[in-house]
């Protein structure tokens, strides 16, 4: 039950769905503006995302990345913070993954994966902890500092890849390929071993790591003392302080955890798919995480569902760009913006009429019963 007396399913499902529908309708208007048929575009998009096993594999691969960045934004939101720095934290997380894989890459993957996860979380977490520390101790707002840290991360990675980590004798700013032993198994490899033949896709075991991460985030936020302190700080900082909670500590913890989750994106992209560190591998997923978290109501289950939606949009969108020449993947960015607008900023726009509708209904029901 929410404050305005709505049934739970209306608050958690109906309102987000209505908002999403309006966002997609407007996206359809943009498609019309571009001079294409929205219905045909939608069909091609859904087909591109779910039409075959390897397309589903791609969709779930993108979903994996988005679960991490969505969770990252959600954790910060619960503490009343807006982490726009997922992009930079993912890049620095990639640095941690690459350092682990380049030095210990000969280990078999089940041993290497926990170490790489540790590297990603430590590096990504550090890149978010600094803005968190600056917010808690110096009062500099995370919204600005995390954006600056995005730029700084991109520049730092550029420097390291051009001057230090570049594969010797090569021109392209990227590291050498990680040793084969440490490559994470692809889903199609596992399925083939089980006798199911599917086309290749970059989907790998990181998908399971993402689901595990979502479960752990839920446990942390709602079943641990630190999670409680974090949410109390987000709900009402003064009340939290009055209750003996240190808001500064919660802020630093929330940011570090948020960055650590964003850093895990690199496990999927760098260790799971590209097998080397290259420039700009985060590809805007850090920003999409904002849309995913808002759409998913900052709840791990919601984040997984929203990540699936956006994963499908990414995969379907790139197939669409293939089919229709006037389309680029920028269209997906437009849809993202619309979703953030309607599911985030304008979420109250349909809430009032829906609340009014349900109030009226609950008022009528007792009368009907009496009659």
């Amino acid at each position, binding site marked *: 039950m929410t404050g305005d007396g709505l049934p739970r399913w209306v608050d958690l499902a109906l309102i987000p769905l209505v908002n999403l529908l309006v966002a997609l309708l407007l996206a359809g208007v943009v498609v019309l503006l*571009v001079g294409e048929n929205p219905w045909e575009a939608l069909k091609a998009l859904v087909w591109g995302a779910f039409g075959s096993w390897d397309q589903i594999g791609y969709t779930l691969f993108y979903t994996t990345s988005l679960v991490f960045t969505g969770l990252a934004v959600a954790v910060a939101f619960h503490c009343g913070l807006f982490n726009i720095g997922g992009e930079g934290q993912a890049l620095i997380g990639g640095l941690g993954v690459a350092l682990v894989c380049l030095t210990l890459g000969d280990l078999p993957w089940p041993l290497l994966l926990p170490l790489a996860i540790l590297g990603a979380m430590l590096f990504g977490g550090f890149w978010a902890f600094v803005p968190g520390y600056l917010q808690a101790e110096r009062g*500099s707002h995370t919204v*600005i*500092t995390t954006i*600056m840290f995005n730029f700084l991360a991109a520049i730092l990675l550029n420097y390291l890849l051009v001057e230090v980590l570049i594969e010797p004798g090569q021109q392209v700013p990227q590291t050498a390929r990680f040793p084969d032993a440490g490559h994470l198994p692809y889903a199609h490899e596992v399925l083939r071993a089980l006798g199911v033949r599917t086309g290749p896709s970059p989907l790998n075991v990181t998908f399971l790591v993402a689901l595990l991460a979502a479960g752990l985030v839920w446990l942390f936020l709602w079943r641990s003392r630190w999670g409680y302190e974090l949410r109390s700080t987000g709900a009402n900082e003064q009340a939290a302080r009055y209750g003996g909670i240190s808001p500064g500590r919660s802020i630093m913890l929330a940011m570090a955890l948020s960055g650590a989750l964003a850093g895990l994106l690199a496990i999927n992209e760098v260790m799971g798919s590209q097998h080397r560190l290259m420039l700009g591998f985060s590809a805007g997923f850090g920003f999409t995480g904002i849309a995913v978290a808002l759409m998913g109501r900052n709840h791990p289950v919601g984040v997984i569902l929203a990540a699936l939606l956006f994963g499908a949009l990414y995969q379907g969108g790139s197939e669409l760009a293939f089919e229709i020449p006037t389309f680029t993947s920028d269209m997906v*960015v437009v849809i993202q*913006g619309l979703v953030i607008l309607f599911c985030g900023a*304008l979420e109250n726009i349909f809430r009032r009429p829906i609340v009014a509708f349900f109030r009226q209904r609950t008022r009528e029901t007792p009368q009907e019963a009496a009659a």
Partner: protein
Amino acid sequence: MGETFLLILLLIDATVRVATPLLLAAFAGMVAERSGVVDIGLEGKMLAGAFAAAAVAAVANSAWLGLGAAIVVSMSFALLHAYACVTHNGNQVVSGMAINILVAGLGPTLAVAWFGLNGITPALEGAGRFIGLNLPMSEWLAPIPLIGPVYAEVVSGHNILVYLTIAILPLVALLIYRTRFGLRLRAVGENPHAVDTAGISVAALRYRAMLLCGFLCGIAGAYLSTAHAAGFVRDMTAGKGYLALAAMIFGKWKPVPTVAACLLFAFADALQIRLQGVVLPGIGEIPVQVIQALPYALTVILLAGFVGRAVAPKASGIPYVKDK
């Protein structure tokens, strides 16, 4: 007249050129926040203005029509922000971010659809661009030492939007501090309940502030695509909106310190371009990336060290709900 002197003049000249959009955006953010609306969407509004200006200027071959389009489009996005944040009490940071992301995708999408170009608009030339103006007397003053070169390099030679900006900024400052509207604007950012009690509409004031904010961002956008560059390029604002916001915070939401902060950031940027490939005595060649990081690192250091707990307008960022 040594070479160093000319170098310094060129550096100042570049600073002015880089500072112009920053100043406009920072003042736009200042007007919005003084009214109690946090606007992280400066970046998006500038980018939208840049696209509109370049697209219209390319089709109509008129930079002025482009400027008009930029202002209209930017003001529309400002109204959208106001609709979400003032009318519907939406989260202001989320709304601003939504506009930033929406515009980042919309510009290149429309560029492909309308011009068949990947993420850019056609290159502008002739009347489609604002070009540098040679102010009168620059030849007459040229022989005079000091004044001549300063006039020729720093004062003269900018495009009309630079001079327009220099004229607009004091007007905005006067509007905030010396008019009835400005008094109410500042009041509504500090204590909207008091303003409401006095019988003045909080929402109307904030809407007007956002319109002014959009107006200024529109000019900044047009400057980027039709004066500074010759057309729209994907993500051409490159974080200027965020830097402007940081400059405004560093300037403590006041006009003169904000101007100083913008000039400082612009100087760091101008220096950055100058320093590339230069070998400094004793240090050697500085890596390009270190220099590129200068404005961003400077922002973080300034926000962390010097501003400390900056005092924002009290009601900034909080939606106004009547009689709770």
